[in-house]
């Protein structure tokens, strides 16, 4: 009985955490992390698992030589951050992001995507 109760309690906690999704982890991105896209995207879109504070969240995109290819200030709506891109020739690009979630914790990360074959 005690084991059953403990497992039930644990399950409740699991369900709560699953529903809340509080971490500002990168949930998915377009272009996808590590992907190769045949044509140049017009923007990079980052979806996080928690709403963001726009004033303290940012993203930049650079080409292989380290030159910025994004259009500057991102647009942020709830948990999604977008930044426009200049016309991209084939090559590899790195996206670096830092975000502040609404509970004042920061997370950061980076990934690459490739344009062309």
């Amino acid at each position, binding site marked *: 009985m005690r084991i059953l109760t403990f497992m039930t*309690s644990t399950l409740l906690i699991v369900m709560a955490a699953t529903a809340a999704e509080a971490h500002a982890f990168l949930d998915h991105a377009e272009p996808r992390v590590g992907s190769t896209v045949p044509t140049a995207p017009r923007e990079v879109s980052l979806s996080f698992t928690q709403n963001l504070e726009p004033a303290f969240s*940012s993203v930049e995109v650079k080409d292989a030589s380290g030159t910025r290819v994004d259009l500057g200030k991102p647009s942020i709506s709830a948990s999604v951050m977008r930044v426009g891109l200049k016309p991209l020739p084939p090559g590899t690009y790195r996206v670096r992001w830092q975000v*502040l979630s609404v509970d004042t*914790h920061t997370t950061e990360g980076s990934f690459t995507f490739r344009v062309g074959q």
Partner: protein
Amino acid sequence: MSRYTMLSLALASFFTLASTSDALAHCFVGARFFPATLVTDDPCVADEMSLPTVAWSQTADVPPASQWDLGIDFSKRITENFGVTISQDWTQIRQANGTVTQGFSNFETTFQYQILKDREHELAILAGLIVDWGHTGSTASGFATDYSLLTPTLYFGKGFGDLPSSFSWFRAFAVTGQVGYQVPTNSFDFTQSVFIPQQLVYGASLQYSMPYLKSEIIDLQLPDFFNHLIPIVELTLTTPVANNFGNPYTTTGTVNPGVIWVGSYFQVGLEAMIPINRESGTGVGVIGQLHLYLDDMFPTTVGQPLFGGSSAAPRKLTF
């Protein structure tokens, strides 16, 4: 419904409600998240709680005895870089003939200071002092001693995300480790007429982060459950190095392959415990842990350092 059942459900409900508030995880070093490991320690000071850690194994006795260990520990940051952990373990040993011995080990306190967090290189270093307070457990049952143990310990964690992109999936690996030198406050145990050795207490983990793989290297579009997994192998060892007259200098310990599922407010870990030699136990044991991130669950109260606030305060982000 028993009082125990009501208490368990009340606690679960409390955590359920608490987890609807916004929060975030704790042991981040740059883009790397180090989970709390089960038999060694992670390289961060944090507000967290293991409730409980449960282990089953068979002792090295002939015939082997069945051993259950139940542990609880609670960690609290005093300042941003200094934290204290209190721990208590309870053990039950059932001999092959049915004889049962059980009791508490000594109360343990760990003081830790965060020396370094290098975001760029995903490197964390922590210094600590573990104190097992003598005569605070069941000395009569043999699970506690009437002398204390002091163990200065160095901890580290290193992620491989700073390797060149050509290393690809390998960059999701990370290692953590700890090395401590355990010194007893007495050199001789008069009740058992044996010397009390000074020991090297050390361990390490090799872990592969599926969350890191998905967000930093390649999104394989796996089912979400797999993106929360961190397969891990832990190693924990003890070697007598001094004041061990008349006893063998045999290293004992276990190799623990397993997996940790990392959620938003807690993690669940499960590992097999494989003794490295006959002196370390018999057969394969198992250890499981439910670990709560208090700084995620209660970011504005329990999850804050007692003094000095948190570096997580809003700041303009720059690259």
